[in-house]
């Protein structure tokens, strides 16, 4: 009979894993610094201290706000559009079967090649960034939602009919909660990709945002700023993904 390890041990082993990964990350970073030098990357400690002073400037927060606003718009549009299209296509089996490979194919297009077109269509402002974010984020959300609806346990729908639920009740009280775990997974994937889209959008042809700061740091030979902004973006992405992963796991455990 094998005894269950105590909970604190399981927790501390997870914490240890995280620590090891963080240490590896810092070691690789330091190694890159030793290899490439000050002109390409800033050392971990120096970056931290630069980042600490950077977040005290209002200039930084102006750019961060620009990115967050564009990201928030993109994410909301990606989620709403993705969920609505995913639900609609999932419920129409034939349309879904036709649309799914098309979306998969669309998704493999290197989207950055579309960016010049997006700029011409939407101009240099926030809307181009939002459009580019949506292009990245919406398709995985559509695909996850579509598959969640297609793979819903049919007996749940039979049960809805046997309980004489209206169509509206079926959608809101059976279908929606049944697809929710998969949908959260889709949102989690869409979240990272939307952010990617927005940052890439800011790197080209934009005067605002963290993406702009990164590229601007390079052209101004301000390597510490570039490295520090990258660090801040990475920390934000890991934290947000961790939060979504936690929700995701909770949803899947209940299911």
């Amino acid at each position, binding site marked *: 009979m094998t005894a269950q390890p105590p909970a604190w041990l399981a927790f501390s082993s997870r914490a240890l894993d995280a620590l090891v990964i963080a240490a590896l990350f810092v070691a690789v970073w330091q190694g890159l610094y030793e290899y490439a030098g000050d002109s390409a990357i800033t050392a971990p400690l120096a970056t931290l201290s630069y980042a600490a002073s950077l977040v005290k400037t209002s200039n930084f927060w102006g750019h961060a706000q620009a990115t967050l606003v564009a990201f928030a718009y993109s994410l909301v549009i990606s989620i709403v559009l993705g969920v609505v299209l995913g639900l609609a296509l999932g419920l129409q089996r034939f349309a879904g079967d036709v649309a799914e490979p098309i979306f998969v194919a669309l998704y493999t297009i290197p989207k950055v090649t579309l960016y010049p077109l997006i700029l011409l269509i939407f101009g240099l402002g926030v809307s181009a960034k939002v459009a580019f974010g949506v292009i990245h984020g919406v398709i995985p959300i559509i695909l996850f939602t579509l598959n969640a609806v297609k793979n819903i346990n049919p*007996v749940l729908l*039979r049960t809805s*009919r*046997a*309980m*004489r639920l209206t169509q509206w009740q079926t959608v809101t*009280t059976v279908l929606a*909660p*049944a697809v929710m775990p998969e949908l959260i997974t889709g949102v989690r994937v869409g979240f990272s990709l939307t952010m990617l889209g927005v940052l890439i959008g800011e790197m080209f042809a934009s005067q605002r945002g963290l993406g702009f700061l990164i590229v601007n740091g390079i052209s101004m030979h301000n390597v510490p700023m570039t490295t520090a902004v990258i660090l801040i973006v990475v920390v934000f992405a890991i934290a947000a993904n961790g939060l979504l992963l936690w929700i995701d796991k909770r949803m899947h455990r*209940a299911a």
Partner: protein
Amino acid sequence: MSAGVAVAQAQTATAQAKVHARLRGVTRVFEGKLSVHALGPLDLDLPRGEFFSVVGPSGCGKSTLMDLIAGLSPPTEGTVTFEDKPVAGEVPDGIGAVFQEDASFPWLTVRDNIAFGLRRAGVDPAETQRRVEYAIGFMGLREFATAYPAQLSGGMRQRVCIARTLVMQPRLILLDEPFGALDQQTRLLMGDELLRLWRETGATVMLITHALDEAAMLSDRVGVMSARPGRFIDVITTGWSRERDSNIVADPAFGVVTARLWSLLRGESLKAIGAKGA
């Protein structure tokens, strides 16, 4: 003479009033690349308050039969009536169905699962709570009331589904192999609970099962179906009293009924598995 005719007519009338669900000339063909004649033609009268079981070889259309009565799918030909109203296209009020598969909602606790239908139907909260708590106690789910289905065994989840149907106070309960996934001992005990439920609610019960002993033990009558397309080859009356329970398996008459079911089914089962010399 005319008096005799009148009596006969009166008897027919009372017999009709007692019939809860009626099937006449019902067939079901699944259209497709390969059309499958799944069922019928068959006739069936389910008297009010009867415990009726259906046995038959696998693939004979037992589940299809249940879908037709429940209004979950329409017959290709023939008519289904429930409480003298035709069943067409939708599930009539007063019918409750429990399926073979686990149909509990994984995102709801046991208590919320059981309350689900009542809440959707807009039953008032006090009454909902009363019925739900009663069903939780009746099905032995008290200590699991706040658990999620994923934390329960298959048998417990099936109880949740039965309770969820029960609280709607159906007058006809259709059960499609609800104990199919359970071990024999649990099945016997669940059978007892089903009998208790049947006596207490006064509902008509139709149970689909592949277990001949289960059918023999629980039912007033057992309909034996042929291999596909399913038809009733015989309907056996067991003659048990209403107060029966699983102890009936010790009664010699139980063995006789079970043996009779098997002798009817043996040939059909051989046909169903494609054996020669059936």
